[in-house]
């Protein structure tokens, strides 16, 4: 401090130095899902998985984002997918964290719905964590129809179907 006449050197007065400054920031957004995702969410509200097919490479994407990430073209054909799929890969969550709503350990898996060409992340339940495996056949368990909304949360989790495991060859492209 050079201007001792008008400023007080807080360090010299014995006050504690300011080491932390809290500046709360909150900004609200109105999200636009887009045409493809809106269709997907309406499908959800109807208890269905709706994907979209690329007109060029014929791959089916779910949830769709309106474009083929490979070809960069609009996906226009809507494809209704079934309720069953295959665990392509997974991890066991053993770490507690703030806001966790599921009891640990639990399984977070990549699930390839039958007829889809891209896997998405889902929760696996109704099976001990140490028994989950690649190739496990699973089905979606939905919340009660009366609770359906425009949300992916309509799917509570996936559980084993009891079918024989899928052959590695059938899902190795989707790991």
């Amino acid at each position, binding site marked *: 401090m050079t201007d001792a006449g008008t400023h007080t050197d807080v360090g010299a007065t014995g006050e504690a130095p300011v080491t932390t*400054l809290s*500046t709360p*920031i909150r*900004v*609200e*957004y*109105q*999200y*636009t*899902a*887009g*045409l*493809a*995702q*809106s269709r997907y969410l309406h499908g959800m509200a109807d208890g269905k998985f709706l994907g979209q097919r690329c007109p060029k490479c014929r791959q089916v994407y779910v949830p769709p*984002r*309106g*474009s*083929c*990430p*490979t*070809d*960069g*073209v*609009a996906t226009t054909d809507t494809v209704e997918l079934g309720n069953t799929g295959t665990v392509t890969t997974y991890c066991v969550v053993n770490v507690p964290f703030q806001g966790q709503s599921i009891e640990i350990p639990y399984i977070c898996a990549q699930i390839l719905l039958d007829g889809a060409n891209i896997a998405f992340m889902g929760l696996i339940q109704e099976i001990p964590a140490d028994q989950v495996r690649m190739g496990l056949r699973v089905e979606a368990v939905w919340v009660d129809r009366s609770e359906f909304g425009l949300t992916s949360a309509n799917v509570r989790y996936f559980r084993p179907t009891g079918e024989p495991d899928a052959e590695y060859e059938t899902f190795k492209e989707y790991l």
Partner: protein
Amino acid sequence: MSATPARPPVRPVAVVSVAQSKAVRREDHRNEVEMLMPVVTEVFANIGITKSDIGFVCSGSTDYLVGAPFSFVMALDAVGVWPPMRESHVEMDGAWALYEAWTLLQEGEVDTALVYSFGRSSPSDLQRVLALQLDPYYMAPMWPDPVALAALQAQALIDAGRATERDFATVAARSRRDALGNPNAQVAKDQTVEDLLTDDYAVAPLRRHTLPPVTDGVAAVVIAAGDRARQLCERPAWITGMDHRIEAHALGARDLTRSPSTASAASAAGLFDGAAGGGALHVDVAELHAPFAHQELIVRDALRLADSVAVNPSGGALAANALMVAGLLRIGEAAGRIMDGSAATAVAHATSGPCLQQNLVCALSATPGGADGKGA
């Protein structure tokens, strides 16, 4: 300030294609990818190429606008990056993405680049989002909005005796009238200066017409080097120089009535080479990114634009101001005038940050060596 020596490009690079969405107040139905896809398709179709002809992709956007992390990664779905492509992104206006692409093309490794940007100003309260670009300790917690900060700048300009409210209205009236000829503009009206001077104040001395509209929009540009540019476009808009400069973050540390960073960037871009000793700059067209009417006056001064220069024939940022897009569009609009033969020389300017903190200047010409054809 001391003159910055011009750095002429080592390899001629030109804008060869431009495409943009119509500027709207709010895009209600499509997400960013769905907005970008038709524009990327158009920018390729204009010159008959596909993504496989592109050597580099660079985008400009900011996650703060849509409130989504890594939104630029998802936006790449509009291009389709398979097989894998050389790609980059700047958390800035697309004009700076174009700068990065131009620099890379100088190296000679690739001959073409796609540059795009997307900006949705509607999902959030823009006044709050833009306050977050200020210093986070002393300024941002007070949430000063960009209109208030711009008003301080406008008042400083009036106090310095360099402009009046009528001057601001004159800029706005001309911009809105010119925008009538721009099918993508959002604000296009034929109004007299007297009409505009009856407008309410947003924040004095800024009346409503001196403010930019809130805009959702996207734009894409293809640049190409040397012979490749000539193959793709009959009349490429050659970039004869480009540079950008930034000023202090603290508003109080700057003279808000001047834009030394614009002047310095223009000098480095070689714009003053033919106008030594402070002479006026003669180009056919100037597209200036001046979101607030009074800022056009400051940028004009910094660029020493001659009175004869046609400024913002597109209507400029007062006609459409998709954040992160409006700067790239100034280059696109200026290049468009050269590509369509209505101009031989042009200057484009882009800005970022509060009160013209950061500025980019791009010199364009119908000949690779500039207005006088040197080096062509």
